[in-house]
């Protein structure tokens, strides 16, 4: 494993498999236990440096670090010295002086974790940067797919929605490809990046044509405000062409699953009855996020003499 986890490409197939295997063993080791805590990272310090509000991701990382007995510092950039004025570099130097063994960073600017990695000695874990990547989300998604379908290799995955602005999509395309899945991106052309042709994925504009041929459909959050910049004419039209409702869910193969990284816009990209159906893995994804992030923290911090 590399020292940092900045993007899906930091993981080769062996690394990614090791993370998923480790997460599975941790799940198994903790299953049914009253004491859901391991002493593994006792005395290590993990800093959650969040420049963007993201309660669910922060809590997931916090729980993961605490279950491994690390000391956790939440450094929420909003409303602190960081929010205005203090630069990322100064913050990095502060964290360095505090002896952070790992910095989990969420930032609205693509590449901010890469910059941070130049300035701190500890490991940097990207918890979502701008419209770039969110590698632990991809890991927990792959873990969830493997748990439900028994494998990732050869699984056909449709990623549907605002690919252009989605760090979840970028990380998933990379990681799922590394693990041997076949990815199809489905979106209106305005929500696909110029250059998407260089990605290891198929591209389609037609959700109905894709659904019968996939094992996994992963819905991305679409912000209604995008219509103000003419990415699509209206929320209603978007929903009609690219939303996953009960009728469309019926077109999926029998054992196909429906995923969503959350938070959902019910009624926009996903209908309530789909989100709450037996195919939906949305709640499992949250639980799997903790064990996957424990595995990442363990593998980055557990060893490798510094």
């Amino acid at each position, binding site marked *: 494993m590399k020292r940092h986890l900045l993007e899906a490409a930091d993981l080769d197939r062996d690394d990614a498999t090791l993370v998923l*295997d*480790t997460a599975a*063993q941790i799940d198994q080791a903790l299953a049914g*236990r009253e*004491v859901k805590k391991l*002493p*593994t990272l006792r005395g290590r310090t993990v800093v959650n440096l969040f420049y963007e509000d993201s309660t669910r991701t922060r809590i997931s990382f916090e729980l993961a670090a605490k279950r*491994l007995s690390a000391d956790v510092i939440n450094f929420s950039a909003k409303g602190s010295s960081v929010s205005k004025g203090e630069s990322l570099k100064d913050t990095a130097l502060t964290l360095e002086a505090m002896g952070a063994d790992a910095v989990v960073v969420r930032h609205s600017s693509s590449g901010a974790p890469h910059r941070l990695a130049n300035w701190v000695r500890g490991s940097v874990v990207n918890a979502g940067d701008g419209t770039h990547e969110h590698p632990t989300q991809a890991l927990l998604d792959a873990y969830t797919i493997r748990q439900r379908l028994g494998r990732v290799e050869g699984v056909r995955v449709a990623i549907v929605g605002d690919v252009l602005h989605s760090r979840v999509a970028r990380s998933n395309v990379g990681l799922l490809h590394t693990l041997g899945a076949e990815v199809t991106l489905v979106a209106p052309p305005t929500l696909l990046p110029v250059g998407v042709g260089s990605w290891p994925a198929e591209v389609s504009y037609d959700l109905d044509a894709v659904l019968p041929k996939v094992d996994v459909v992963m819905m991305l959050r679409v912000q209604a405000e995008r219509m103000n910049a003419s990415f699509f004419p209206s929320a209603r039209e978007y929903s009609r062409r690219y939303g996953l409702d009960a009728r469309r869910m019926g077109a999926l193969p029998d054992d196909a699953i429906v995923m969503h990284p959350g938070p959902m816009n019910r009624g926009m990209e996903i209908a309530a009855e789909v989100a709450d159906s037996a195919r939906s893995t949305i709640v499992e994804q949250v639980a799997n996020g903790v064990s996957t992030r424990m595995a990442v923290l363990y593998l980055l911090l*557990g060893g490798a*003499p510094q």
Partner: protein
Amino acid sequence: MASSAQPARNAAPSSGDPSPGSVLSAADVARMVDRMAHQLIERAATDADAGDTTAGLANLVLVGIPTRGAPLARRLAARIEAFSGVTVDVATVDITLYRDDLRRRGVRALEPTELPAGGIDDRLVVLVDDVLYSGRSVRAALDALRDLGRPKAVQLAVLVDRGHRELPIRADLVGKNLPTSRTQKVSVRLVETDGVDEVLVTEERVAGRVDEP
């Protein structure tokens, strides 16, 4: 300082081509496992709370410490069943996440932790490992057990005790005491993990590297 005497007594293997440094053969290992199984049955018979041997064995859980403690625990259970007709619960507890030397040794892949359906509360837990050395693995296993439940008692069975304890820990059952020097490396190899049953004592070739404590 421990004795530097060579442990090469009784080193002739009973069959097959021994590896260099082999001090115990497959037949030796089989005899040791059999003897330990008998000892466990005897201990169960004297378990005052249980009343009789069958009840004593039924209360027993053999907890293997991966990697090689796990197959050893299964072998012991199989021999106990062969000798007594009683099926004994077998479990494994991976101690990787409980080790105190991660910083020095680096990460490795985790192995399964599998407990009996009813857990380990009020059971007699016998930890099973291949080699007892510093005692740190056993300490980690005890920590793990503490998080997993509250056994009535915990005992320790090891195939080989090579000495050089760093913690106040001793084994209740020992297949073989092998006096060694710290510079030597003791390797237990089992069919399940290594394709052959034998115990090796080799001179450490890498300066400064010590056997897994």
